[in-house]
């Protein structure tokens, strides 16, 4: 009987206690009014760090939507890789207060982080040139130069034989 009770309690706990779940950038942007002032968890890739004395802005990208997180400089220094063309940035999780128009930050949309963790370190992205494309581009350039020279030669020959305006 006791295992049945445990099972029931577990089900009840799952229903009552909300699981800590990261909000998507899309959800935060589209439902800003309902999230305003609430504590949210936001996870994504770091695409920018701007240090401001004892604080910093860390811009985090989650599936095409980026949000700025205002955190301590100490937290920001945990970020080692910033996302760009050659790098996938660190994946971080920020837990803090969401503000759709933060009056202390000139009305910016932001998250004032109370907790900031690097979940996964970023990595280098492979961007090697495509051999077929390189070959095609070189061949095409040679063709372009050839066409220009050839047509210019024809035009010069034409002018020599039949001067303008008698073409």
């Amino acid at each position: 009987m006791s295992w049945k009770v445990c099972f029931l309690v577990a089900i009840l706990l799952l229903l009552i206690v909300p699981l800590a779940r990261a909000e998507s950038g899309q959800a935060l942007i589209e439902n800003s009014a309902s999230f305003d002032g609430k504590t949210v968890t936001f996870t994504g890739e770091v695409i920018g760090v701007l240090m401001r004395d004892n604080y910093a802005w860390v811009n985090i990208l989650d599936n095409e939507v980026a949000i700025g997180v205002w955190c301590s400089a100490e937290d920001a220094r945990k970020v080692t890789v910033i996302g760009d063309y050659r790098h996938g940035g660190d994946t971080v999780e920020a837990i803090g207060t969401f503000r759709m128009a933060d009056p202390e930050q000139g009305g910016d949309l932001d998250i004032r982080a109370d907790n900031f963790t690097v979940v996964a370190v970023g990595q280098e992205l492979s961007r090697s040139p495509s051999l077929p494309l390189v070959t095609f581009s070189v061949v095409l350039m040679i063709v372009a130069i050839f066409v220009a020279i050839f047509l210019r030669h024809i035009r010069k020959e034409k002018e020599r034989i039949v001067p303008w305006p008698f073409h």
Partner: protein
Amino acid sequence: MIPALTREDLKIIGYNLSRISYLMGGILLLPIIVAVIYREIDTIPFFLIGASLAFILGSLLNHFLETKKEMELKHAVVMVAVGWLLAPVLASIPIWLSNATASYLHASFESLSGFTGTGLTVATDIDHLSHSINFLRHFLQFVGDGIGIIVVSLSILGKTKISSVLAFKGEAKELGIRPSIVRTSRIIIGIAITFLIVGTILFAAAGIKEGLNPGTAIFDGLNHSMTGYATGGFSTRSQNLLFYHSVWVEVAAIVTMIIGALNFNLHYAILGGKRKEILKNIEVRILFFSLLALGFLVSANLIFSNLYTSPDSLFRKGIFHVISGQTTTGFQTAPPQHFMLLWPAFSMIVISIAMILGGCANSTSGGIKMVRIGILFKSIVREVRQTLLPRSAVVRGTFHNIEDTLITDTMIKGAAVIAMGYIVLFTFGTMITVAHGYSVESSMFETSSALGNVGLSSGITSPSMPFVVEVTYMFLMWAGKLEIIAVLVLMGFIILGLRKGIKK
């Protein structure tokens, strides 16, 4: 009676288009320098392919359509209209090859948005774009809108002929700087480079102050200066200027946007010593009044709807977006979706009006333009005075735009025709957008943004936007850039060809 089209007409247009094609080839090679600096060797083939295709096309047009006949006005206008489609098509090749957009249609949209100085973007993952492709996007705005491809081609490849003058006018630019069209073109480029340098210094300094490393600050600063002066609005970041969370970056942006919205003739006069023109000029006065009046309306609406309640947030959100809209730049410091979902409808409508009004004539701005608004307003005043005065009285209206100019009926007619054209296209674009399920105020906002070549977005423009809406906005961007008349002349040209055929 309008004469039928001949093969010679098509030859004249095609032959002169070869110049645009050659120019595009040169432009598409420039980002290779950026690719080398940032060691993005894998992107070099994209530019080589695009440039090669442009050069091949230029060579073929130049050879097979060779003619010594001069362009007439109709040829020049059609050539400009077609050129402003040809150039973005060629520029879209590297953008598409780099997978910056999801499809070739999106790449064409992006390229056209760049060239026309609109700034609406459908690029995916801007934050992971290569420096070279990002540079190309911004450079297209600087060359296409900041200077004008016809202007560039004239200054590099041009000769002072009537045909050049006509092409210059076809790009919706008026003469007035110097007698020689080539010299005028070079002066326009000189002014653009001057303010590009000024803008880069301002943006870079702001970026470094606000925590960017110098290399990034200079790269971002150069690109934002290009699009700020060109009143284009593309950004190196997906968040646009919100990425920086910085009032100093926004101030740098405002400086470049307003300067970009001023008349080239005014720049020439002021930089040549006529400093009093800054405040005497009618367009500056109307722009000043308009920005403050519309800024007041938007800020009042925002504060009383409790969205932004502090002075700095009103300035950085309300005033900033009015300036961005009226100068037709499109820099944003709020997420696009917020315009649609959070901003009150009244503010959206006011900013839509600002976008349609636009900046000064002969500037990088779009819209109906301040001088036309001024002419139309003064004509209304003139009409009222004429009615109140005795029949025999003659009421003259003048305005000061570098020099005192009498308002003529021809001017009023010209201004009214352009304004009417904008209103018709605005209505058309809004209806198409609303028909796809978007709200009226968002549709008005996005349509005026495309037509006025602004770039502020309420979120309708995205990689997932409906096909018909995307093509409609491409048409509006193109028509708006050419101030509608050139597009109508091209349509007339095509209809004439279809009706009467093409004679030998």
